[in-house]
């Protein structure tokens, strides 16, 4: 998978932004460049979204470009299908992960299938923004990790940034993509600040994983909100003399087998980390792929540190569900080091 647009300018502008601001900036820049980009959803207009991600877009681009819809997620997704069929590039916001479920049929039965159905005649360049996952003390239905549903559905690209710069660049690329992209926004990282490379120079592109930290003993594979936790675990492990490598997937579909396998082969051990309930999830897929493709390099079974197979807990218990540094290090400890 190569990036849709290639590097265009040598001098890239940089700015320090929170993830929410980076997403806002990506929307703004995309809307400024391309008049067919529309932003719509519940409360994205005057309010600027419940997380303020769309703040100021209506003021800057007018009500035709960024607007509130009636409160109906299937309607929003289906309406976006029509907009995309007819020359627009809609970016729709699902207010929270669990509130995207009413749109499931439109996503699975139409958005994912339209290009294939029509032999490529009708492509749907649309982005579904899903503020997702936990760690913000949200009440029931506000913290679901729904990515496995999308990743399992053929015809959708699924990406999850782990930092503001990727939030910007992956969203720019998602908007430019000729195909539907589910853009997962880790809610708990909305306020995390970082350096953001602006502009439409989007490297590495969708489909590319990145090794965030080099290490030689074991590889942690993570995406979205679990990446900072994995990096922290690697930091702690380093103090104990264990060298952990961290791969940030960035893109779940397409999946970067090359980078992941190379990383795992270089260490011979791997732990997969994700917030979602583990059963039949993306973490299962990664563990299965790595176990199959790196079989002879593995010195220990691939371990998974995921959410348990339970409904997302209430705020006071969510720390139990979320992959923690301790749980990650426990899993690393379990990697049969006595054999090494």
């Amino acid at each position, binding site marked *: 998978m190569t990036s849709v647009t290639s590097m265009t300018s040598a001098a890239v502008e940089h700015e320090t932004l929170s993830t929410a601001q980076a997403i806002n900036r990506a929307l703004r820049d995309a809307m400024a460049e391309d008049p067919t980009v529309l932003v719509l959803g519940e409360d994205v207009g005057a309010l600027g979204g419940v997380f303020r991600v769309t703040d100021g877009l209506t003021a800057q681009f007018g009500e035709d470009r960024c607007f509130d819809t009636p409160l109906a997620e299937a309607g929003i997704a289906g309406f976006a299908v029509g907009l995309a069929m007819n020359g627009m590039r809609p970016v729709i916001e699902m207010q929270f992960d669990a509130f995207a479920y009413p749109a499931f049929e439109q996503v699975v039965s139409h958005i994912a299938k339209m290009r294939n159905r029509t032999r490529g*005649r009708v492509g749907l360049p649309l982005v579904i923004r899903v503020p997702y996952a936990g760690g913000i003390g949200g009440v029931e239905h506000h913290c679901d990790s729904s990515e496995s549903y999308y990743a399992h559905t053929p015809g959708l690209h699924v990406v999850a940034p782990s930092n503001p710069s990727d939030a910007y660049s992956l969203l720019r690329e998602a908007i430019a993509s000729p195909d539907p992209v589910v853009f997962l926004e880790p809610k708990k990282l909305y306020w995390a600040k970082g350096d953001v490379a602006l502009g439409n120079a989007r490297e590495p592109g969708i489909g590319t994983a990145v090794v965030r930290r080099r290490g030689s003993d074991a590889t942690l594979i993570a995406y979205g909100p679990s990446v900072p936790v994995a990096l922290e675990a690697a930091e702690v492990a380093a103090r104990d003399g264990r060298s952990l490598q961290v791969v940030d997937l960035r893109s779940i579909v397409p999946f970067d087998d090359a980078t992941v396998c190379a990383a795992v082969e270089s260490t011979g051990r791997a732990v997969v980390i994700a917030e979602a309930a583990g059963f039949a999830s993306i973490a299962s897929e990664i563990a299965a792929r790595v176990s199959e493709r790196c079989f002879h390099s593995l010195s220990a079974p691939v371990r998974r540190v995921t959410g348990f197979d339970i409904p997302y807990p209430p705020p006071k218990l969510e720390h139990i569900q979320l992959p923690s540094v301790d749980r990650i290090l426990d899993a690393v400890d379990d990697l049969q080091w006595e054999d090494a």
Partner: protein
Amino acid sequence: MLLDPDGRPTAAGKAALPAGEELLRGLAGMVTARRFNEQASALVRQGRLAVYPSSYGQEACQVAAAQVLADGDWLFPTYRDTAAAVARGVDPVEVLGLLKGDWHSGYDPYERRVAPLTTPLATQLPHAVGVAHAARLRGESTVVLAICGDGGTSEGDFHEALNFAAVFRAPVVFFVQNNQYAISVPLARQSAAPSLAHKGVGYGIPGEQVDGNDLAALLDVLSRAVERARAGAGPQLVEGRTYRMQAHTNADDATRYRTDDEVAGWAAKDPLVRLETYLRAEGVLDDAHAAAFAEAAEQVARRTRDGINQDVEPNPDDLFGYVFAQPTPQLVEQRALVRDELSREEARS
């Protein structure tokens, strides 16, 4: 109703009947639609189509839905509305693609501006609203006519689409083809509303009921709705009351849930006979016309037959070629696996 079941103009009809020209065109369309229905059903019996949901008896609705639209407009059909797509000029063989089983949508939706036929009920309605809204944002005068069955009105997507259309004043005509049944479920178990046209009220959308076996009335009501939408007055809901004369599809057994008497009662209201009777009485239709219409219909039937009887060897590579604009590395791998398997299979045989 502008024409009564016996083909006589009603009081309203005398004032509002469309021009003879229009009605002749409509009759020609219905003759073709009827023949197309018969041909497609025959192809199912011959095992050439997997399944066919026939619109036999509903040809007035099928033809009117296409006839009231301009070239730049869009038609959003349900899976039953193959005859409407044909009436709009889509190639009949391509229209039947889904039901033949070669591919999902057999035609290019942009060519005649006909959305792909698919089966999930009512789900096409919000798409229709989106297409209409996009056109409106660009200042185009496109109108979208979206069809839905009586059963489909119960789905949440129907509700959400009508509400979006109303709030955005999108130029959409929602045409409910009320053929009294959703497979086996009669209208009375689908809705307790006085009529399906009443469903517009809750959205602030005007609703109108029309005799769906009266082509003249359909042309009148639908074209007014289309022009109203084009003029910027927002969406409209039209309920055409008709009847599904045959079983739901060839796989269905309608005797399990309805009586022969009921079917016979509706047979007496056949839309073709009604219009033909009128046009002959008026002297607008003569035998030469009728023969020409029959011949045109026969041509469509022939083209359908020939095309469907032609076996195109489907290409397994296609399965991987249209999932995305660019196949993912995973799809490239999987395609290679299939190619390898097939070539070894070929080598073995």
